[in-house]
């Protein structure tokens, strides 16, 4: 009897040790996702260009579609340019705001509402964190970027960039 009891006790001890080893180590539960306010960085204005009203307040709006030569010559519209013009997005009367199709004014740090009028499914994905880059915490405070932080609103297509170096090819011993 004795050896059998001893063996059984040893096995029970082993099982206890194994169970302890397999126990999931504790950890804090992920933070609540209640705080879903969209925190966005500042719109990517060229230095000194905002507020627009500092120049435009004395200028009469010119609604003619034309090539800009005196000011903003760097802006070349490649964003459905056949149908679009500056004042479709920029408000003619309040230059420091954009406007939606409804006429509602939106500030530049809410410009995603303007973009989302046409790109609704992108806005939906962006709000879900699926379109665009997110930084911060996967279970907590997430930082968003505005559409305009990555896409130039006047030429939204991504520009090609230089890739980082290719990996080295494997070398054979004695050869380089």
């Amino acid at each position, binding site marked *: 009897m*004795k*050896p059998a009891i*001893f*063996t059984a006790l*040893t*096995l029970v*001890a*082993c099982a206890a*040790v*194994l169970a302890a*080893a*397999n126990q*999931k*180590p*504790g*950890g*804090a*539960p*992920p*933070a609540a*996702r209640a705080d879903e306010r969209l925190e966005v960085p500042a719109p990517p204005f060229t230095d000194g260009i905002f507020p627009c009203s500092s120049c435009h307040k004395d200028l009469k709006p010119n609604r003619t579609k034309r090539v800009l030569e005196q000011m903003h010559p760097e802006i070349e519209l490649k964003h459905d340019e056949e149908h679009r013009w500056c004042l479709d997005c920029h408000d003619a009367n309040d230059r420091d705001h954009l406007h939606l199709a409804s006429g509602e004014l939106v500030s530049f740090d809410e410009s995603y509402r303007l973009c989302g009028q046409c790109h609704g499914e992108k806005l939906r*994905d962006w709000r*879900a*964190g*699926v*379109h*665009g*880059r*997110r*930084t*911060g*915490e*996967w*279970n*907590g405070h997430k930082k968003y*970027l505005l559409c305009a932080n*990555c896409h130039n609103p006047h030429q939204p297509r*991504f520009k*090609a*960039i*230089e*890739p*980082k*170096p*290719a*990996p*080295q*090819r494997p070398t054979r011993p004695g050869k380089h």
Partner: protein
Amino acid sequence: MATDHPTPKAPRTRPVSRRQFATCAAAAAAGFVLTACGPKRLYEMPKARLQSALKEMEAAYAAKYGTAVHVSDAPPLAGVEFAYALDISRCIGCRRCVYACVEENNQSRDPEVHWIRVFSMEKGKGVDFTEADPYYAPKEVPEEGHFYVPVACQQCRNAPCTKVCPTGATWTEPDGIVVIDYDWCIGCRYCMAACPYGARHFNWSEPAIPKASLNTQTHYLGNRPRPKGVVEKCTFCIQRTRDGRYPACVEVCPAGARKFGNLLDPASEIRYIIEHKRVMVLKEDLNTLPKFFYFYAT
């Protein structure tokens, strides 16, 4: 003990019989083997001994690299299973992720170790690794008619690599990260042969990391500097993600193609992608059940 009657034939001083000794010895040996070969190397160590081992490790790294190094043993978070998703329709093949990973995870610069490999593929041919080129080097990306598929560890649920390890040096953590204990790895490279994704990398020489660019925030099972002769791979940036942060590759991607989150959280980005997008895994027919998904957002 069925009876209390003392029997003269079985005195208490009876010596241990050969059979009794052999049985007990076998049971003790079995117990030792069962406990010693269990997969949870790191957590088996008594807490105090682990802490002193980590301190010794930090001191050794500090002496080698001339700066204070923190080695964390942060455990998995409860109720978390990590997963990753990569938008193939957005990746532009710029390799920013490759080098961000090298910096974050203290990969060897010479010989070069890259945990992420970006394959250039032709649009007409689809995802086909026999035709893919990881050495593409044009002036600018994306190239006309090409798309890009970055590949790192797929963190398989049914991981072939962990099954072949003879020392139990690699295993799947409860949060789904396949990890390697570099102190138990004997460098046999069976896991590299077993991995269908080429995601594991071997340190053929002493890894060279410039002292100035060492990432001093490390995890025992992740980016702590490795010795020569061990295998390493992506750990979903275990030192960051167990701290609640996004992996380095997610944060650096200029196209926003990389997504990361908790598979068990119905409100996570990863669940949104799986529920709303066209999702696939690489080499699905091998039944490795990756937790690294590829999707097309457009």
